[in-house]
């Protein structure tokens, strides 16, 4: 394993740790947490600190150390979770996230001085002492460097670029560890000398004073030992263990091998002078009940790596699996077609194979499915920043965060979601004073929800703010030349003008929503994913952004149509209906433009053959098949020669396999082995409308 791979695992663990911290912090803030909540936060931060030390991310380690100090005081009830302190913890959490991000990207460390100072003040406040010795950046005694500095130093020395994975050692000396002058501390010193660092000290089994048997060792440790140390050498260090000692040595991978346990209960490998001296003075060791040591290994940070409930798989492997399954689906379709040509298309085995392939495909896709939680968890921070930037107060409600979608979709929800949230807070919600004046609570509500709806994921962001002032939007759109002054638009159409290029409703473009990307760009990006974004609003009551995306980008339901000698796929998400017009229902405007009266609406007809330059396609609408499609620019009609089929197709990227082509969103391989291109309906319709507008203007 390469160092960067181990680091990748570390950063994954950081991500999980940060999510844990944030969830539990929210519980503390809402008063829902108990002692274990703080413990959970502490452990997560502690793990991040430990890993940061092992990899030499000094700023991250230093910051998490300070945060950990405060958390520790909180967990031992030396500090109490006042709203101020919780606010500080949230601020520190944000900085911690930035630290992780900068460690990952190799960028400069974030400015953390202000928060660090507050953390130190909080720690010393709780300690009723001016400062925390371990937090003072320079120790008085040069030899007594801080633990994190030492760790980082060790990591630098012992983890060259090609270093193997560090060992994870869980070490519980057992009750009898102090017998005959034994002491685990010298062993820890030896481990420290070879570059190990203590990830955690396990005090779970340590009794309180009244129940403490001073001569029984109830401590346990989890250590990270540089992978450069040979396993045999590491095991040798633990050779002389008293009865009842439990040692597990594992790499970061899921294997846990118990180290051979020594049977000799007598001597430690290298008794320190102190321990040796003690053994002379000590009374005869009492008969320690060596039979009942806690057999479990330390269920702490290290336990995560050895858990068997989940495994980590590289995304590349998963992508390869999904791709292969896609090929299998295509091959299955080809086989079915070939067999049906020979009159044996109805055999049971073929339909079994069909079912199996579908199940396999679904399973493969579900492996890639992830809850949208990973994206939703970023929202509280965005809200906090917005609150700080605008002076507004926001209560966030989240629903459906466990809704699963394909990883590729999850990755691409983030940007539109951020814009929706920014817009809701920045443009939607009023200032606390205005809200009170309008008879609303001073705190605005933003509701974030996700759900599956007919094979798509729908994410909505609602606020209870001022809503969209359609009169103002309309005036602005006229002023900007986006619509004609006498245009006849419904309220819904006016509201959706905010997605028009060059439109901004805020009186002054703030640096919050106006981060250089307009809603038009957001809409375009969403459309590129086969999704839609829209807004509905009630003036004075609030607005709701709705983002609809396919569950996966790898498979799509399509209508297979023929145009000339070519076969195309129209994504079913766009298709409203298909019809064959009677002669005379189609009205022509000049040689190129035609419309059809569909129940009172005149919809433009787009001849796909002519748009894509396909020879031999049907030119006469009355002889063709017309497919009504829904787009963001309203309904239009695609004219094709005929409909062949309606089915799921495996999407192959044109960008990856050839080059992007305007008007086409991808390709697929059909059952007979031919390639069919997938139409990008939005672009086709927009292009046609643009052409028409140009034609009319000319």
């Amino acid at each position, binding site marked *: 394993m390469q160092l960067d791979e181990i680091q990748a695992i570390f950063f994954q663990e950081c991500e999980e740790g940060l999510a844990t911290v944030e969830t539990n912090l929210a519980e503390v803030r809402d008063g829902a947490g108990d002692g274990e909540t703080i413990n959970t936060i502490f452990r997560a931060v502690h793990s991040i600190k430990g890993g940061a030390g092992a990899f030499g991310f000094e700023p991250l380690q230093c910051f998490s150390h300070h945060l950990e100090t405060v958390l520790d005081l909180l967990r031992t009830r030396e500090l109490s979770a006042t709203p101020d302190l919780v606010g500080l913890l949230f601020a520190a959490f944000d900085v911690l996230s930035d630290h992780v991000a900068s460690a990952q990207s190799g960028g400069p460390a974030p400015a953390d001085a202000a928060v660090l100072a507050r953390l130190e003040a909080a720690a010393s406040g709780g300690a009723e002492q001016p400062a925390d010795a371990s937090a003072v950046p320079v120790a008085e005694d040069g030899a007594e460097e801080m633990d994190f500095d030492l760790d980082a130093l060790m990591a630098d020395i012992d983890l060259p670029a090609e270093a193997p994975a560090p060992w994870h050692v869980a070490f519980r000396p057992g009750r009898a560890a102090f017998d005959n002058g034994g002491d685990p501390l010298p062993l820890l010193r030896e481990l420290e000398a070879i570059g190990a660092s203590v990830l955690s000290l396990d005090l779970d089994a340590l009794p309180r004073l009244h129940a403490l048997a*001073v001569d029984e060792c109830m401590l346990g*440790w989890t250590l990270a030992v540089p992978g450069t140390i040979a396993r045999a050498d590491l095991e040798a260090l633990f050779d002389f263990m008293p009865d009842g000692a439990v040692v597990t040595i594992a790499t970061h991978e899921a294997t846990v091998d118990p180290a051979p346990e020594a049977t000799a209960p007598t001597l430690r490998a290298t008794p320190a002078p102190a321990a040796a001296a003690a053994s002379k003075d000590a009374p005869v060791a009492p008969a320690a009940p060596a039979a009942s040591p806690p057999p479990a290994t330390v269920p702490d940070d290290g336990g995560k790596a050895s858990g068997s409930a989940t495994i980590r798989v590289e995304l590349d492997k998963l992508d390869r699996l999904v791709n292969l399954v896609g090929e299998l689906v295509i091959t299955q379709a080809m086989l079915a077609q070939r067999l049906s040509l020979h009159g044996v298309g109805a055999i049971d085995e073929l339909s079994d194979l069909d079912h199996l392939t579908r199940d396999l495909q679904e399973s493969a896709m579900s492996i890639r499915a992830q809850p949208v939680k990973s994206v939703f968890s970023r929202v509280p921070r965005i809200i906090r920043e917005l609150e700080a930037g605008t002076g507004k107060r926001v209560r966030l409600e989240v629903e459906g965060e466990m809704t699963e979608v394909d990883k590729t979709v999850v990755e691409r929800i983030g940007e539109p979601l951020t814009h929706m949230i920014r817009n809701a807070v920045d443009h939607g919600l009023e200032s606390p004073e205005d809200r009170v004046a309008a008879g609303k609570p001073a705190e605005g509500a933003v509701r974030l929800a996700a759900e599956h709806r007919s094979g798509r994921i729908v994410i909505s962001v609602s606020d209870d703010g001022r809503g969209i002032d359609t009169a103002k939007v309309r005036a602005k759109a006229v002023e900007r030349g986006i619509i004609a002054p006498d245009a006849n638009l419904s309220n819904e159409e006016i509201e959706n003008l905010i997605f028009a290029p060059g439109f901004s409703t805020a009186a002054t473009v703030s640096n919050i929503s106006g981060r250089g990307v307009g809603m038009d760009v957001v809409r375009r990006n969403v459309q590129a994913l086969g999704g839609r974004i829209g807004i509905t609003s009630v003036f004075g009551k609030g607005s709701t952004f709705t983002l609809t995306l396919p569950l996966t980008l790898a498979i799509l339901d399509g209508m297979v149509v023929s145009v000339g000698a070519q076969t195309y796929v129209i994504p079913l998400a766009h298709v409203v209906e298909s019809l064959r017009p009677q002669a005379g229902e189609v009205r022509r405007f000049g040689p190129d433009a035609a419309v059809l009266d569909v129940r009172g609406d005149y919809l433009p007809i787009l001849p796909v053959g002519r748009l894509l330059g396909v020879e031999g396609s049907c030119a006469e609408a009355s002889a063709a098949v017309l497919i009504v499609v829904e787009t963001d620019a309203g309904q239009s009609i695609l004219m094709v020669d005929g409909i062949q089929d309606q089915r799921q197709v495996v999407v192959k990227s044109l960008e990856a396999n050839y080059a992007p082509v305007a008007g086409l969103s991808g390709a697929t391989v059909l059952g007979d082995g031919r390639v069919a291109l997938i139409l990008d309906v939005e672009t086709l319709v927009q292009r046609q409308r643009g052409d028409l507008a140009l034609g009319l203007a000319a």
Partner: protein
Amino acid sequence: MTPVTLPAMFDLTAATALADTFRAVRGPIVVDGAAVERVGAAGLQLLLSARATAAEAGHRLTIITPSAALQAAARTAGAGFLLAADV
């Protein structure tokens, strides 16, 4: 509040001898660690137990003037937080 003074040799023997002293303390525990020259895990364990016991009762354990040896041992054992409240 009289500090509990740790001996130069803070090992199992010393820990056994000091346990009752710690048990007798009501309220915050103050520990004088200036004289410590050698530390055993049994000593650290006693401090850790005392700290947890005090914390449960809403009190603190403070080590004033921990010696270099005590600081080093605490950090080696991952118990640096013992020193967190000192000066």
